[in-house]
Structures are given as C-alpha cells and as structure tokens.
C-alpha cells in the first residue's frame, strides 16, 4: 500500500495488517463518513411521505437480513432457501412475548432494544439447530434441508392457535426518551433505529471478515477438506455460519415486527426466502456492499413492477392475468440475467466504478 494514505492508487500491501484495514485510504473513510452524515441528515431537509419512508425502512431491514444470508451463502458457501423463516423466527419471538405478556407490556414497549437482541439470539439458536444437517449435507441436499425448515415454519405458524394461525399479532407502540413514539414519528423513528443497526452490524460483519472466524467461513467455502487439514473445524464453522445468519435474520424479524406494528405469517413465506436469495445474488454474493445493493435493487424493482402491473391492469383489463404474472416474471428475469451476465452482482459494477476513480486519470 502506498505510504500516502490519501493518494493510494494500487493494490499492493506491505503488511497483513495493511491488507486488513477497514478503509484502504483516508479518502475511503472520508467518503464513508460523508455518506453516513448524508444518510442521517437528509430527513431533516427532505420530507418524504409515509409510503416512501415505509419502503426505505423495509429496505434497511432487508439489508440486515441479507447481511446474514450473505455470510451464510456468500462467504460460507451454504445455500439457504429458508431465510425468511429465520426472519420469521425473530418476528414471532417478539409476537410470542406480545401474546403471553400483552401487546403493550413494558418489555415490548420500553425494553425494545433488549427484545430486538433477544429475537436475534433466538434466531441464532434456531439457526444453529437448523444448521446441524450441514454437518452431513452439502449443495442441493442442504438446500432441501433449509426448504424443509421453511415448510415446517410455515406449517407451525399457520396451524398453531398460539401464533393466531398466521393472522396478525399486534405489537404495541414503543417509547423513547421523549415518550411514546406516536404514529406521526413512527417511520422516521424506526428509520434512525434501523439505520444505526445497519451501520453497527455492517461494521461488525466487516470486522468479522477480518478475523480468523470470518476467514474460516471463506476457507470452508473454498475447500472444507483443506480447511480441516489446516486445523479449522468445518462442521462447527458451518453450524456457526447458520447461527450467525439466524442472528441477523432474527434481528431483522424483530425490526419488521416493530416497524409494521404486527406480525403476520404472509411476510415470511417461501417467496420471501427466494427474494432474500435474489437480493444476495443481485447485490453480489460474498461481498459486504452487495448486501446494500441487492435489497435496494430488488425492492425498488418490485415497487416499479407493481406500478406497471397496476397500470396494465387498469388500462388493459382483458389481460389482467398477464399483469398478475409481471411480478414473478420480472423477478425471475432479473435473477437469470444477473446470473448469466453479471454473476458477481451489482457489487462488481461498484468495484469497476471505484477502480476507475482510483486510477483516474490514468486509465488502462
């Protein structure tokens, strides 16, 4: 790495420590800080309607969930199509407290940071249990195991009266130092809460990947026998990857429950699991920035397709069924196109863009 941390242009390092820096240059750090300031400050200057605040908050929650899936699938190489069920575990942990203690119990309304953490921990425990088959299964067989978990989750929620048979279980309004967070401030309040969590967990993931535990994930993904020979424990690493994914998903689930002020079964279906996987693929598997790009791209695409389907449905009523098919069609098409033409996802475009500016004006 160049001695001048402001003007670094190449990718050469003189020490392992230098290679493991979170920010390669001061410019990177400065841009990151400016970006964070912008993220925190824009609501003070621009007032968005509740609809769009809800979309933005949902994107941030999806980012938290995709952090976990990216660790599991991108870094540890374990494909999961039951991620929405893990998110559901977090949400239903909170819903269970609400069912037993009451919607407006102080634990739910005042101790919500603790509840979010507890949901994450329950998600991690369930994730670890579901990850046990990973000790014996690989590839498609593991995919089927995670699919089974998704099915079991759906069946459990849909048929147990404790979970209100999948119908919405309400969650009370939370309190902040200024008092009860009223409906007017609801989306903005959760925007800041979720944003803080996204930043903290993002830095946690970045740091994890610098540690031996993070490198273990990558080593097991690339060759578990080689990793075993080098003294790592592939079995524990796989289970721990599932537990990590479960933790992130559990946190996302609790945030979802608080944001939507209720937990209903239809937010955690197989379709949502595939959506999370699509977000990870489109964003860029095995990259941290991919966890940001994927949810933004997929959720914005869904919104636009919805508008388009509505337009078609209204003006060409005879082809209403085609409008119904737009959502899955566009969704599937985007995944196929990315897999064919840009398997490294949007993160690769980001990498190319960064390289361009890094080398500017010396293009080659």
């Amino acid at each position, binding site marked *: 790495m160049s001695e001048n941390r402001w003007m670094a242009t190449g990718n050469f390092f003189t020490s392992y420590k230098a290679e493991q820096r979170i920010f390669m240059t001061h410019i990177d750090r400065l841009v990151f800080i400016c970006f964070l300031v912008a993220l925190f400050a824009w609501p003070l200057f621009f007032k968005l309607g*509740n609809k769009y605040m809800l979309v933005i908050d949902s994107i941030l929650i999806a980012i938290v969930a995709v952090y976990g899936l990216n660790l599991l699938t991108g870094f540890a190489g374990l494909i999961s199509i039951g991620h929405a069920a893990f998110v559901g575990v977090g949400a239903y942990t909170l819903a269970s407290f609400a069912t037993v203690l009451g919607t407006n119990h102080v634990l739910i309304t005042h101790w919500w940071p603790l509840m979010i953490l507890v949901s994450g921990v329950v998600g991690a425990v369930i994730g670890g249990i579901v990850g046990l088959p990973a000790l014996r299964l690989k590839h498609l067989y593991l995919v089927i195991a995670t699919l089974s978990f998704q099915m079991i989750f759906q069946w459990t929620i849909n048929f147990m009266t404790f979970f209100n048979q999948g119908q*919405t279980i309400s969650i009370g309004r939370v309190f902040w130092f200024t008092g009860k967070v009223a409906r007017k401030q609801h989306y903005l309040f959760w925007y800041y809460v979720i944003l803080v969590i996204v930043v903290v967990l993002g830095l946690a993931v970045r740091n994890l990947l610098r540690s031996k535990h993070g490198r273990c994930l990558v080593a097991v993904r690339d060759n578990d026998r080689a990793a075993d020979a080098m003294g790592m424990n592939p079995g524990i690493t796989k289970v721990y990857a599932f537990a990590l994914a479960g933790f992130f998903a559990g946190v996302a689930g609790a945030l979802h429950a608080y944001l939507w002020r*209720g937990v209903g079964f239809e937010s955690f279906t197989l379709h949502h699991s595939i959506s999370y996987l699509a977000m990870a693929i489109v964003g860029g598997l095995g990259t941290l920035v991919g966890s940001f790009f994927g949810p933004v791209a997929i959720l914005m695409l869904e919104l636009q397709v919805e508008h388009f389907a509505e337009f078609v449905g209204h003006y060409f009523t005879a082809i209403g069924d085609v409008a119904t098919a737009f959502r899955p069609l566009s969704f599937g098409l985007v995944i196929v196109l990315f897999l064919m033409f840009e398997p490294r996802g949007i993160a690769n475009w980001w990498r190319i863009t960064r390289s361009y500016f890094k080398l500017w004006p010396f293009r080659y």
Partner: protein
Amino acid sequence: MKNKQVTVMRIALSFLLVAGFAVQAVAGETYKMGLSLAITGPTSDVGSPYAKGAEDYVKYVNDEKLLGDDKLVCFIRDDGYKTEITKRNFEDFLDEEIVFYLNYSTGSTMALRQDFQEEQIPVLPASFHAGNLEGNDYIFLPIASYSSQAVGLAEYVAANHKGSGKPKVALFLHPSAFGRAPRDDVKKSVAAGLGIDLVEIVEHGKDLDNTAMLKRFQSKGVQYVISQTVQPPVATMLKGAQSLDMIAKTYGEAGKITFLGCHYGGGPALVSLAGSAADENYYWTTSYKMMTAKGPGRDAQFALAKRYGRDDKLAKDANYTNGIMVAQVAVETIRRAKAKGKKITRAVLYEELLAMNGFNAYNTLTTVGPVTFSKTDREGVDTLQLYVSKGGLFYEVGAPFESEYVKKIKQ
C-alpha cells in the same frame, strides 16, 4: 405612456387573479377516498369487479354532480392480496389526505385496524368478518358478517333437513383469516344448541382435484357442505362432486350432498366457473339483491354498467354490486354531512355513519335491507337472503332473514 401601460397590465393581472379564485370557488371542494384491493393475484376474481363497481359509481357521482360542485376522487390501488402492499397503499392514501377508506381483505383489515383506530378514519372493508369490529371503533361492515351468513345457512339446514337425526354438515373454508372467520361462531352455535352435526372442517389448498375430500365426506355421511371461500375452489369442488355424482338434485336428497355457500362462495360468477355443476340446486346467501331478478336496483346497476362500457357478465356480478354499494354508502355519508352544512372531515363522516339508523337508515336499492349503523351496531345490512340456482340463475328462497344463533352467542 409607460405608466399607462403598467396600470393596464396591473388591472389585467388583478382581473386574472380574481377570476382564478372565483373559478376555484365555483369548482367546489374535492373529497378524497382510497380503495386498496386485489385487482390481480389471489381473489382477484372478486376484487376486479369490486373495483370496477366502486370506480363506476364514483364516476357517476361526479358526472351527475350528486355532490353538487364538489368532486369525489377515489384512489384505487391493486395490492395483489398482500397485506404489506395494502399497508403501503394506505399510507400513500393518508399522504393524499383521504377522508374515507375502503379496504378489502380480512387479513389486511385485521392487520391495519390499529392504524385505522389511530388515524380515526371510517373504513368500509370488503371483508365481512365480525372480528374486524373487535378492538376498533372505525371499521363498519357493509353487510351481515360471515358468521351471520355461515350460521344462517346452518340454521336453514337444521330447520329444513328431511331425514332422521341431525343433519351432517362439513365446512369448506379458505385457508386464511377470511375463511376461518365464521368457523368459531359456527362451533359456538352448535354448542349453544343449533341442531346440526358438524362432521368436518376443511381448509382447502390449491388442489384441482377434490376427489379424496369428497369421498371422505361421503364415507362420513356428510349431507351438506357450507363454503366460506371464493368461487374458484367452490367451482373445483362442485365439478369434482358432479363427476362423482354426489350433488343433490333436490334440497337434502338422501345419499347426496347439498352444497351451500356464503357471499363470496356463490353468485352468477360461480355458475360461469362451474357450469352445469352449479346451475341447479346450489344454495347461496348474501345481503345483496340478485341482479338477475327485475327491480329498480337491477335497472340502476345495469344502466351504470352500460354507461361505463361494462359487459353483461360484469353487470350481473354480485361483487360489482358489492363495490357499488360501499361507494354508495361513502357518498351518502358525505352527502348527508354536506346537507347539514358541515365541513367534510373524517370525524364528521364517522359521526354521520353512526347516525345512519332508524329514520336515517340508508336504502341502497342493491341490498335486501337498509344499511344501518350505530355505536352498538356496525354491521350495515343486517338481513340476508337465501338464493338457489335454477337453470343457471339464482332465485330467492323465502324472505330475508337474520341469524338467530349469532344473536344468541353474542349475548
């Protein structure tokens, strides 16, 4: 010279400004309401005609100036039967400052009821689930609840069963909050003495073949099936029953099954889907008048459909009536508030809805009874009409009725 030109320009500008304001004043107020429903996706066979009914009636109100110079805007959005999208649509409508909201599914009504309560906005959903009214003051059911419908059908079965012993009944439900809505009330009614033997409760899937279920019904001696779901699964079941020669040709025919359905599980659209399997002896209840029978309601609905270029099939659809009816109630509420010289706000419309009873009950022409709401009764049309299909058309059976056991179990 220059001063003269400036003066002339000033006068012209002032005139334009005054004229602008005057035109605005003449144009009147604009009232906004929102409707989020499944125009595409699951249950869109109900949502699509429903949306068109509401849309056409609002157009009619504006074209015919039923609100004077004031204009009514109804935002209609597709939510694909997904609660998350419904919530987003609702937030969008609130940003547009709606004064009245028309919701659709049971699931989303239950999920958003806290929001309705906090926003203090009157809501008329397409869901007739009695549970919508619990823990909420702002949701109004347009017609009698699913519980009243299902229990009412069960009462009819109990009263008209010809064989010995209690009639054996199965419930065929949509696997959702909508389908499950009347389940517990039917059970409670049986426990309270309703004379039926509830043999099985089935939540259907997306099966295209119900042979196994129907054979099971047969082996258990089921004589009546009451459906609380949308028309396509009922049509699938009826076609299956027809191929197995299980449909009763007359009411309660021994050894066969008589099929009955609640509002969304019947009507002319069912006959279109199921064909000959539903065109004879299918019993159906709703609070809406049948658009195949002559009357002022039918004439008005047909005229409305024709006016806005709708086809004959849609004009006869019970869910087109359904959409018209909720828009009618919303418009009538606004009209009454306006007549009293009140400014149209959510609070005023809410009060106006609560006052819609006694001499102020609203006759819609499209329902079998008047719409009545009060603090203690937020079910609009209290009466139901039983219909039976004959030659592909639905005909009235007896007079409009109210479920006795629902009253009993609610006490």
